[in-house]
């Protein structure tokens, strides 16, 4: 089986400061891969690279057989198709929410897919996701007035409504209370069982061992130390 995501000897540096050093990694369809490592080891940079926000300076990144680099994503059609397939839930949910209400926020992605989704389907998707995440009471509220846990749920909802094949989550448990952490862990497990490919960066060992088919440990040399 060909891997969905293939990274080969990927290197990246921020203004001369190395963030990723010769990363080679295959991620299969439907797999849950957990990234672990100390702060500053390059986990978030790797997630950004997988999402096509930055590009390898050396090495190659292939998604579903297609090379992902600056020139590929310059083509807006290819770029949009790629971003529909790979959803990113940021560590800070605040940066992901910019619409007037939670419902608008969830409908934002599907509404842009109006070439393949009717108005009824868009509304159904929003309703389904709202129900799935149990946020009916938040639907008409402004996102910036929500609590941290609620914002996290909404940011997850607005990515899920686009139905991406791969869900990338940067520190999903950060800033959540115990109950919210348990809920999210169970929910991610449910998504995994539904066949979604999950890539999660976390410091939480419990979550890593609960969800991870494989756990990748990165060291402070910005390399993959070992894979469990």
């Amino acid at each position: 089986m060909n891997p969905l995501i293939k990274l080969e000897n990927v290197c990246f540096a921020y203004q001369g400061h190395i963030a990723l050093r010769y990363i080679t990694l295959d991620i299969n369809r439907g797999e849950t891969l957990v990234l672990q490592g100390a702060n500053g080891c390059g986990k978030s940079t790797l997630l950004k690279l997988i999402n096509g926000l930055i590009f390898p300076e050396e090495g190659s990144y292939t998604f579903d057989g297609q090379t992902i680099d600056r020139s590929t994503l310059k083509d807006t059609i290819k770029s949009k198709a790629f971003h529909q397939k790979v959803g990113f839930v940021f560590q800070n949910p605040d940066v992901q929410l910019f619409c007037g209400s939670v419902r608008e926020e969830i409908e934002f992605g599907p509404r842009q897919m109006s070439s393949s989704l009717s108005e009824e389907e868009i509304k159904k998707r929003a309703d389904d996701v709202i129900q799935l995440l149990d946020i009916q009471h938040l639907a008409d509220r402004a996102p910036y007035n929500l609590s941290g846990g609620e914002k996290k749920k909404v940011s997850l909802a607005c990515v899920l409504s686009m139905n991406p094949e791969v869900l990338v989550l940067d520190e999903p448990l950060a800033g959540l209370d115990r109950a919210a952490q348990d809920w999210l862990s169970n929910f991610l497990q449910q998504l995994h069982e539904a066949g979604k490919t999950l890539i999660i960066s976390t410091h939480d060992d419990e979550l890593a061992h609960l969800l991870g088919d494989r756990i990748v440990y990165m060291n402070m040399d910005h390399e993959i130390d070992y894979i469990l």
Partner: protein
Amino acid sequence: MNTIPEWMTKTENYIPETDHDGFVNRSLLSVMSVMSRFRTSEGSRKGRLAQVEPSAPVKLAMALLIIILASCSRNMFFTYCMLAVLLLHMCGLGSRQLPRVFTAALAAAGFSCILLLPAVFLGSPHTMLTVSLKVFLSVGLLGFLAATTAWNRITEGFRFFLIPDIMIFTFDITLKYIVILGDICVDMLNALKLRSIGKNHDKGNSISGIIGFAFLKSRHMSEEMCAAMACRGFEGEYHRGTLKILKPVDLLFALYAAMIVALFIYL
């Protein structure tokens, strides 16, 4: 826990439509380029030039001195001399900084030329040339200062001119929050880019949402900082430690400044 809807378990068969969304990319690039300038790594020179670099207060004082003297001077020869000094210093700038400083100075001079165009028709063409050259000199000097000195060093340099510490502290906080809010804006534009997977009929609304959120966030952060400062015993008075001792090379630049003043008086 609720069950996952059926559509979510299927692979999306979606082919995007074309849309003009270069605006998000352009906004991202412009915010990121401003941010990279504010980051303290830029500004301080490296290599051999760093050895003969005066400290920030001296550079600031020299820039202000030349701007004031050139503005007061009625002798064009003095302005030409100062322009020659500026161009000589600009030769030491890197390939990224030189066009930035030169373009800003040239744009300001060009704008002055347009504003003073009526003077040419009213029989005073020299006015346009004099003012435009002085504008080029002033903007060029300030651009040079910004390009070769880290922002935090510039604000520290204000202390040399006995500007109150609380004011310098305010400048420092402003710079810090420009960087923090800039980072937030970059992340939000990235999030918008990632979620712009088709035809967005309401791009203006998304961008205004980002601007509105950045405003709310800045207000929230200012309130939090105010509370944090109150908790740390801040009651409106702020005093920093003693100013760092100037470097030996600064004496050389003081001599250089004295020569400029002597030239101004002589001419």
